[in-house]
């Protein structure tokens, strides 16, 4: 099942709509958002939910509690 989320890259300037299968992992989600960004991100990516909790990269989106219309933020360790 596909869900839609609102993704924010930590040092960017706006949020993007992300349509993604709920079975994907949190790490996949981070990659999907970063691939749209105008910068190349390096190093580890941290995904947090709206409450600010860091999500397990190996968890599925469903297991991580991300549902339709939720916000997530990807923080990058650095950029090129």
């Amino acid at each position, binding site marked *: 099942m596909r869900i*839609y989320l609102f993704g924010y890259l930590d040092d960017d*300037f*706006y949020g993007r709509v992300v349509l993604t299968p709920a079975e994907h992992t949190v790490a996949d989600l981070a990659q999907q958002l970063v691939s749209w960004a105008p910068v190349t991100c390096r190093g580890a990516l941290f995904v947090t939910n709206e409450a600010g909790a860091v999500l397990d990269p190996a968890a599925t989106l469903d297991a991580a509690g991300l549902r339709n219309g939720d916000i997530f933020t990807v923080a990058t360790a650095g950029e090129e």
Partner: protein
Amino acid sequence: MAILRDEWLDLARKVDWEFRYVDDRDVFPEELSGSPWLPRSAWKDWNESYRTSYREYVANQRAKDESVRSVRDALDKVRLVEGLDRGWLQLVKFHNGAFVLAEYAAVPSELRMARFGRDAAWRTMATLGALDEIRHTQVQLLVGHDLLRLDENFDWTHRAYHTNEWVMIAARHLFDDMFVAASAIDTAIQLNFVFETGFTNLQFMALAAMADKADHHAFEKALASIQTDESRHAQIGHPVLRTLIENGGKDRAQFLVDKMWWRCWRAFLATTGTAMEYLTPLRARDRSFKEFMQEWVVDQFVKNLEEFELDRPWFWDLFLEEIEFAHHSLQLGMYLYRTTLWFDEPVPDAAERQWLQSNYPHWEEVYGPMWDRFDRAWEAEGEAGTIAYALPALCNLCQLPTVFLRPGRNTACTLERDGRKYLFCSEPCRWIFEREPERFADHRSVVDRIVAGQAPGKLIDLHEWMGLGASDHKGKDLRRGLEPWRFVPVPKG
């Protein structure tokens, strides 16, 4: 023997009568007249300072129209438009689409007050207000029409309001809330007090001053003449607000003021803020948007609040923080999504960047690298590398993209209601929604419509859905134009 003006005027404009066979509550139902519903006696001291008679009104308006027309007629058709700065033309196109038909939408709202306003002088003033708004529509349609010879997209002066273009959905959402779907009292406070007393100076006087320096005199005269009307009928707001406050309606008044202040701020940073600082030629800028906001809007508004012993809106600190950044962030989004606009957007050049930096001490550090990326992408990949393909997340209240206040400072938040999740650009937008959820909950943003299958998800089809079908009608990079491949028809199917 002639009767002197002062002897008949007050009697005439306050003419009113009591009903023997029907109750005031039936003549002025609360849904249309507004809340709180006060007894007739509460309104008896309603007054405003212009006290214009109909005869004076007709004479004045005729002179105003003539002054606009004489400037237009003094220039021959070619000189009327030739030599105008290209960025400036985009600003006019933007202004025309976003505002001109909203003036027309304000006509029935003024008429609603002319019928359901609770005092005769208020109704008199609103009748003139309705006539004003018809004039504002017509004079600006004329300016737009003159520019059609230069650029056929000036038909968006009339068209924009009837499309599903996303800026226009945001504009309609605002104006519907402000006056189209508002009672007489709510209209007086939201439209006359907050929008017209608070903000339209900026749109009409500041832009008129810039139009003068940009040598666009027909536009300048039209704007300046409109503002003289606005400042008259905006006077409706003060006595309505005063009556409310003196009769136990202070909480309601404070809510309407706070809500509309935030909504107007959102609208003006998106339109005036971006247009003043990215589309106006440097020679025409004598002040920054931030300075205009401070001097013409904020100081005046704070004075007004003090006069009524109202508090500053609870989000005041956030608002002050935004003045420095928010319109610059939104401008990046407008550029990135320029193919969904009906006007063109530039990448600021070196001189413009210097101007931005001198007016906003953080500009180069915060926004410089982002614009550099666009320049690099143009060199490396051409136009395709400078356009966004993901959908922007839109606020379910203001309908604008949820841009960060500034890069690294995200204010977006959500709310769940009846099984649906709503997204907001900021706490104040969420707060407005939460106060009257039944008013806003059923509306769908462009993104909601795409997700629900009510609008096409493919960008090319979405353009068509927004009324931007033809390649050369979509916004483009102001200085680089369109790449030739854009003119190759897209195969259907």
